[in-house]
């Protein structure tokens, strides 16, 4: 043990003398761990929230009974089912408004609430008496309490004029949910003796058949292993994970080059140690121990950085998830112990992988230094051939995946294979270009320049591969986001065709508003809208009722349709389906679907397919009158208005004043668009941030590689200096060399990036979101990225080159003196 300590001390002394190298190694490990664990923290945070949501008093994790003919059913069924032996507990769900904000209200019955309902809510175990005895309690998440700027015990008024029971924080609850006793909920929601669903406990016992108890009024819904939210957001998290992984890999490139350098520099010391009687086994054990301890330190620092990255990105992630999927993620990061352990583990594992080649060399290290083979050219050639062969293999895998894969994961696998293959083949491409350069070079210095660049290839290639990956992904993601952005904006123009949107609080108010609007001269048209929800093929869908009006005819973003589609819509036997739904159910124009409706299935012919970006649910658009005929009880509270442009602000404020509507219930088109765009932008803010991080890490990788090379370059440069080339000239040559290989890499990255973009748009997007986008190329953006890449290379090359330019002649002389 003591001996081991002394060997470790000798090895560690190297870092004390080379702090820059240590810094590089740590930076690599820290950035790899930080980005990876940052992303993991975000994913974990989201998953915890989904669990909380899913577990909130029988989300999808619990089997339940629901009514067939509407959102609620009579409470008497609860008693009947219970008395037939079913261990059920009633829940009433609805929405309430407090100061214009809408919340989900859950009424529960804690005495019968099955103990196994969800893993989050602990209500029903503790203070049940306070919960059910007047005045009762309103349980809510701490985030919701602070959002409302209220203290515990407050009794806020809801829009109906009633007041909530005193607020009481329950940490396990999801935000924007309020939980009260079922009796209180029935009063607040004005649904006396009505319930939304019956949660079924796991207690066993004889149960009478459901049909015998409730006829066909109730339906059994089996629990889902995965919540809707999880399914919907899978793609988003996969996206994040892919980026985290990419950053991790790029970080490992840095680690690999730093460890490789340190190993080369310590080779003599390792031999000396062996000569002084350190056995090979011990030496390797100490090398691993050294690496693991460094990885532990870096892992911990990386975790702290990862925490901050996650905390910084969380608001955007939360906004994206809320905007895209309606998932509520609390704004405060909570980290589990598993996260810390996993982070440190990934750091150690990454370090070991990155050090694998060096460690393998150390294990086989002969005590006696044999003559260095100068046949670098053959070695490099072999290495290039091997890597290129590997690359071709990976490309074949990518092609097979593209041909036969059908999932989102396969899409990402295609991407990964493409990137990996390109990275592997990069050195061969560079070699080819440099070889051509050498062949066509006229002057001796130029010939040397090309030849020497070729020799440097193996040292630089890892960093260049990192640069290639980072650039290609940047190009890919940038192109996708830009494409999506343009498509989205023009789509918004079509979808938000009305000038003012109103959502009345109930049907009565909607009628009052309509009557009032008819008197207003500036209102050119009133376009009532309505929305029903039903299920199709096992998944929830929306049915949108459209007024037969030129506004829609002219603007609705139809992708395909039959001729005269809007007229065909009128009778109510045809409908448009959203692109996502069409894709999921493989629907084409002329196909028939049957929508479950209260009065029986509603057959529809598909006569159009329209874009519905950002909607996780499938949608069917039908004529509004037909919709109301089939779903008589849906609220008809949505109104769109065509208004004289100049009069919009006046009308909106008049509406707000007259009907007590706030910004959530009445909005003009511009505001709606701005809000939608904001959601959209935040969705990709995370992607952009991770993108930038990755590029930064690639820059660091390039810098460290160049620094590493800089030291070993001296023996090659010294002879040139000796034959009369100035240090400044040498520095300029070195800079040109770095920039030219970086440029070749960047130029190679552009088509690769476009390929990545195509994969993202044509495969990943379609699988993840269900929509296809036109594929556009944005040359300016490409140029910009090219500039960024060259700038990164310049910055990375500057430090070693400056060192060369200012190098004392003595150091160059020393090269000859030390030569043996």
């Amino acid at each position: 043990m003591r001996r081991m300590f002394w060997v470790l001390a000798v090895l560690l002394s190297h870092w004390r003398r080379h702090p820059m190298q240590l810094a590089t190694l740590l930076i690599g490990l820290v950035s790899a761990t930080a980005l990876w664990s940052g992303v993991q923290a975000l994913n974990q945070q989201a998953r915890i929230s989904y669990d909380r949501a899913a577990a909130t008093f029988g989300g999808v994790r619990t089997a339940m009974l629901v009514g067939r003919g509407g959102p609620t059913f009579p409470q008497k069924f609860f008693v009947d089912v219970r008395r037939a032996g079913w261990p059920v507990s009633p829940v009433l769900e609805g929405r309430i408004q407090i100061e214009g904000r809408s919340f989900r209200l859950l009424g529960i019955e804690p005495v019968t609430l099955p103990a196994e309902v969800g893993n989050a809510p602990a209500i029903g175990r503790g203070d049940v008496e306070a919960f059910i005895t007047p005045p009762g309690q309103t349980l809510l998440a701490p985030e919701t309490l602070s959002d409302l700027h209220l203290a515990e015990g407050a009794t806020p008024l809801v829009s109906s004029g009633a007041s909530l029971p005193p607020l009481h924080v329950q940490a396990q609850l999801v935000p924007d949910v309020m939980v009260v006793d079922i009796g209180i909920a029935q009063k607040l929601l004005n649904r006396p003796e009505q319930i939304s669903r019956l949660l079924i406990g796991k207690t066993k016992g004889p149960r009478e058949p459901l049909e015998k108890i409730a006829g066909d009024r109730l339906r059994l819904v089996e629990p889902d292993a995965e919540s809707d939210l999880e399914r919907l957001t899978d793609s988003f998290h996969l996206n994040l994970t892919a980026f985290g992984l990419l950053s991790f890999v790029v970080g490992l490139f840095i680690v690999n080059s730093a460890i490789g350098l340190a190993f080369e520099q310590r080779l003599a010391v390792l031999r000396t140690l062996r000569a002084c009687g350190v056995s090979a086994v011990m030496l390797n054990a100490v090398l691993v121990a050294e690496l693991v301890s460094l990885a532990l330190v870096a892992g911990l620092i990386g975790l702290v950085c990862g925490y901050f990255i996650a905390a910084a990105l969380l608001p955007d992630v939360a906004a994206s998830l809320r905007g895209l999927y309606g998932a509520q993620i609390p704004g405060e990061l909570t980290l589990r112990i598993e996260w810390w352990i996993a982070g440190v583990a990934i750091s150690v594992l990454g370090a070991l992988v990155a050090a694998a080649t060096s460690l393998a060399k150390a294990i086989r290290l002969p005590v006696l230094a044999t003559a260095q083979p100068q046949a670098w050219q053959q070695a490099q050639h072999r290495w290039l051939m091997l890597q290129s062969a590997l690359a071709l293999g990976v490309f074949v895998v990518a092609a097979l995946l593209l041909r036969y894969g059908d999932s989102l994961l396969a899409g990402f696998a295609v991407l990964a294979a493409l990137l990996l293959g390109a990275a592997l083949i990069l050195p061969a491409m560079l070699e080819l270009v440099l070889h051509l350069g050498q062949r066509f070079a006229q002057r001796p210095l130029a010939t040397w320049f090309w030849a020497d660049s070729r020799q440097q290839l193996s040292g630089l290639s890892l960093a260049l591969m990192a640069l290639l990956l980072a650039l290609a992904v940047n190009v890919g993601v940038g192109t996708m986001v830009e494409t999506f952005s343009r498509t989205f904006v023009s789509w918004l123009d079509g979808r938000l065709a009305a000038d003012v949107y109103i959502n009345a609080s109930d049907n009565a108010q909607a009628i009052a508003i309509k009557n009032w609007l008819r008197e207003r001269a500036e209102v050119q048209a009133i376009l009532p809208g309505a929305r029903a929800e039903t299920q199709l093929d096992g998944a929830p869908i929306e049915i949108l009722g459209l007024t037969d009006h030129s506004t829609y005819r002219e603007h609705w973003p139809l992708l395909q349709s039959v001729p005269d589609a809007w007229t065909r819509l009128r009778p109510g036997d045809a409908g448009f389906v959203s692109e996502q739904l069409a894709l999921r159910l493989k629907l084409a124009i002329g196909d028939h679907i049957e929508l479950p409706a209260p009065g029986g299935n509603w057959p529809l012919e598909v006569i159009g397919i329209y874009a519905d970006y950002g909607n996780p649910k499938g949608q069917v658009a039908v004529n509004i009158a037909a919709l109301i005929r089939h779903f008589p009880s849906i609220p008809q509270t949505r109104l769109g208005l065509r208004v004289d442009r100049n009069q919009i602000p006046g009308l909106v404020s008049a509406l707000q004043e007259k009907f007590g509507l706030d910004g959530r219930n009445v909005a003009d088109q511009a505001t709606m668009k701005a809000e939608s765009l904001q959601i959209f932008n935040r969705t990709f803010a995370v992607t952009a941030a991770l993108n930038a991080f990755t590029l930064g890490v690639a820059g660091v990788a390039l810098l460290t590689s160049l620094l590493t090379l800089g030291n070993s370059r001296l023996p090659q440069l010294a002879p040139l200096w000796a034959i009369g080339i100035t240090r400044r000239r040498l520095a300029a040559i070195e800079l040109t060399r770095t920039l030219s290989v970086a440029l070749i890499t960047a130029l190679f990255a552009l088509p690769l990036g476009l390929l990545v973009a195509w994969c993202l748009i044509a495969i990943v997007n379609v699988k993840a979101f269900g929509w296809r986008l036109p594929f556009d190329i944005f040359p300016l953006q490409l140029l910009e990225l090219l500039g960024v890449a060259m700038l990164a290379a310049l910055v990375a090359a500057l430090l070693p080159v400056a060192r060369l330019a200012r190098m004392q002649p003595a150091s160059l002389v020393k090269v000859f003196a030390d030569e043996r």
Partner: protein
Amino acid sequence: MAGNNNIVLSVRNLTKTYRTAGEQVNVLRGVNIDVAAGERVALSGESGSGKSTLLHLIAGLDAADGGEIRIGDALVTKLPDAGRAALRRIRIGLVFQQFNLVPSLDVEDNLAFQSRIAGRHDAAWQAELIDRLGLGALLKRYPEQLSGGQQQRVAIGRALAARPLLLLADEPTGNLDEATADDVLALTRDLVAHTGCGFLMVTHSTRLAATLDRQVTLHAGLVA
């Protein structure tokens, strides 16, 4: 030859063959050498005569093809790698032409590290070595700040710090000028006499070889 009890190194019928580029080179073809405690032996021979190979085999840095090497009571040729490493730690001091100091350790730590690894660190002996080698003023310097002669003195100190049975040196003065070489060798001779270990030095310099107790010459893989 002195009494067998005093023999610290005994080499019997040692053979070693290398294969390079399909060609078989018989570097050692049955070498016999003995070194007694306190005895200082020079090993010379022209380039390719196998003197360095012999030294490496004795140090256990390489494995012999045939024959026996005994250091004290240990049979080097029968030891596995770990055993040879232990032998190097405890019984052998090695000095190389390139000094092979650890660049990231200062003189004091370079001097001490073999004895520490061997678990035989002796502060008094180290102090004496520092004194005898005249390194007192250089303890906090790093190898790159030392002259060649100073570096080699540190290397000799390191090799002797664990009080080995046998000190092996491979052209220890090859990188030093003549005056410095004489100084370093004189110091080494004195230290060997003082510690009573055996000393085997590979050199191509007949002048330096002549300053030792006995000269052995290798020729074509055999003791001439």
